[in-house]
């Protein structure tokens, strides 16, 4: 058969293949451009940018877990001003791949300001609204993504203003993901992406202290894959907008599971730290799978769970 078509258009975001790098696991491309061919990617999602520079949390910020890791970085970043002046132009020089900019805030107003600022930047493929960072909480101690009303409110404000497609990134730390996914859809999200990390902690029994200075952090890696896959499947069944799936993808088989469960595209995160070539193997593996099962277009694979 002729080569399968891996390209996909998600709410106006044109991807040459469905494989992207996750926010927070590829920085702004400058390091991995030495180890990866970023042009081969479907898209690059930047580390979350906030309105003002963030120092981040005290160390230790990461700890290994069985088949995964916990992190509590605390969104350390240079802030939107420096990002647009310096970081983003550099990233655009590094790759032709679409760049999705992840934004985060503590208040709805911060998301509004960030959206307005990014409206002036043409070269952005989409914005990913990170309302699910477990290390940054609202005043009431919750994330926006843990409450349907707050999810709806942020999404509505951002979507009504944004000139770029809006992806809303959801948290797995919820009782009913379908309800939250619908809240984002009704708020006007073009796409939802999930999952962000699962809240977790580890304790050092000798010192009886938490292993992360922040006490709790977000769990990622293959340890969360079955949990995340189930949430992506549920979310995809709850909304009509496209879903981007992620959580512990280490190989092409994992990626295909997400697509069969209903994800239109997949995101590689923690696996980048283990093997920066994972993206390449995943793209190739999906292509070979499509050949083997005579799948001409990705769309016939998405949500094809029998």
């Amino acid at each position, binding site marked *: 058969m002729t080569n399968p078509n891996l390209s996909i258009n998600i709410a106006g975001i044109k991807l040459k293949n469905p494989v992207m790098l996750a926010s927070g696991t590829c920085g702004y491309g400058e*390091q991995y451009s030495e*180890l990866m061919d970023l042009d081969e990617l479907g898209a690059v999602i930047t580390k979350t940018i906030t309105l003002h520079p963030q120092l981040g949390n005290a160390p230790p910020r*990461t700890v290994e877990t*069985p088949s995964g890791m916990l992190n509590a970085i605390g969104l350390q970043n240079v802030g939107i001003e420096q990002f647009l002046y310096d970081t983003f132009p550099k990233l655009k020089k590094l790759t032709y791949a679409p760049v999705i900019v992840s934004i985060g805030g503590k208040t709805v107003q911060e998301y509004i300001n960030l959206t307005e600022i990014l409206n002036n930047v043409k070269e952005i493929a989409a914005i990913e609204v990170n309302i699910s960072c477990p290390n940054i909480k609202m005043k009431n101690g919750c994330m926006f993504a843990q409450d349907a009303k707050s999810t709806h409110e942020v999404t509505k404000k951002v979507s009504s203003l944004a000139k770029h497609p809006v992806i809303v990134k959801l948290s797995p730390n919820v009782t009913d993901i379908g309800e939250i996914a619908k809240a984002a859809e009704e708020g006007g999200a073009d796409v939802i992406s999930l999952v962000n990390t699962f809240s977790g902690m580890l304790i050092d029994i000798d010192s009886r202290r938490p292993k992360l200075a922040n006490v709790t952090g977000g769990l990622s890696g293959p340890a969360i894959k079955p949990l995340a896959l189930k949430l992506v499947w549920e979310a995809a069944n709850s909304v009509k907008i496209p879903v981007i799936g992620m959580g512990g993808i280490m190989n092409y088989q994992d990626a295909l599971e997400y697509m069969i469960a209903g994800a239109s595209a997949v995101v590689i995160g923690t696996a980048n*730290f*283990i093997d920066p070539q994972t993206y390449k193997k995943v793209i190739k593996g999906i292509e070979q799978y499509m050949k083997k099962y005579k799948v001409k277009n990705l769309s016939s694979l998405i949500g094809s769970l029998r």
Partner: protein
Amino acid sequence: MIQTKATINFNKKLNAKYYQMSLTCPSIAKGALPGQFIHVDVASKKVFLRRPFSIYKAGGRNIEILYKIIGAGTEALSEKKKNQTLDIIGPLGNGYKTEEINKNDKVVLVVGGTGIASLFFLANRLNSKKLFLIGAKTKTELVNIKELKDIGCNVKVATDDGSKGYKGFVSSLLKKTVKKEKISYIYACGPKPMLKEIARISKSHKIPCQVSLEEHMACGVGVCMGCAVKIKEKESFEYKRACKEGPVFNGQEVIWE
């Protein structure tokens, strides 16, 4: 920075806990500088993330690391055999700065534990007078001292139990040394409490000092911001990455906690 498959030339047991491994990886060996490290996939089901190791030697087509078994990662590494391959990324991080060192300067290199790896590499590249101070719990933990003497180091040892050399911490030995002799520069690598004390001694004697910090790392290449170190910045501080801006820092810039 390069990601490559490196073949193991040897993986030699030095004592109960210490190993020395040689890897063929010309692309990394060529540009590696003292203080830089490699990030190694130890390819074990018991371990998830890569593990960082200071470069001990680099020359020709090969690099060497010197490591101690401290957990599942190093345990898995110790079980590797000749001719097996490891996926490694390197050389990573910033090495020791040596521009200020002249031939007639007397430089002190202070190590605790596996800190010997990066400072052996540095000593091998320095043509000044070199005093190498090694700290260990007991004499059976000491490794490769002859190699240090062979590259022209004057070596002094401190053991906690007094089984060899000076009895006490290596930082106390440093303190005695700087009181007696004119020292132009201090380099140190080892556990944090030791480095903190060395930075304090260097400050009080106004001797410039660089320290190499050992931190847990996830990505190792500068993207994840996981290996944050608190560094003085104007009136305040900021978190820098041990893997990118470090692992070598000016001892007076580190905020020790």
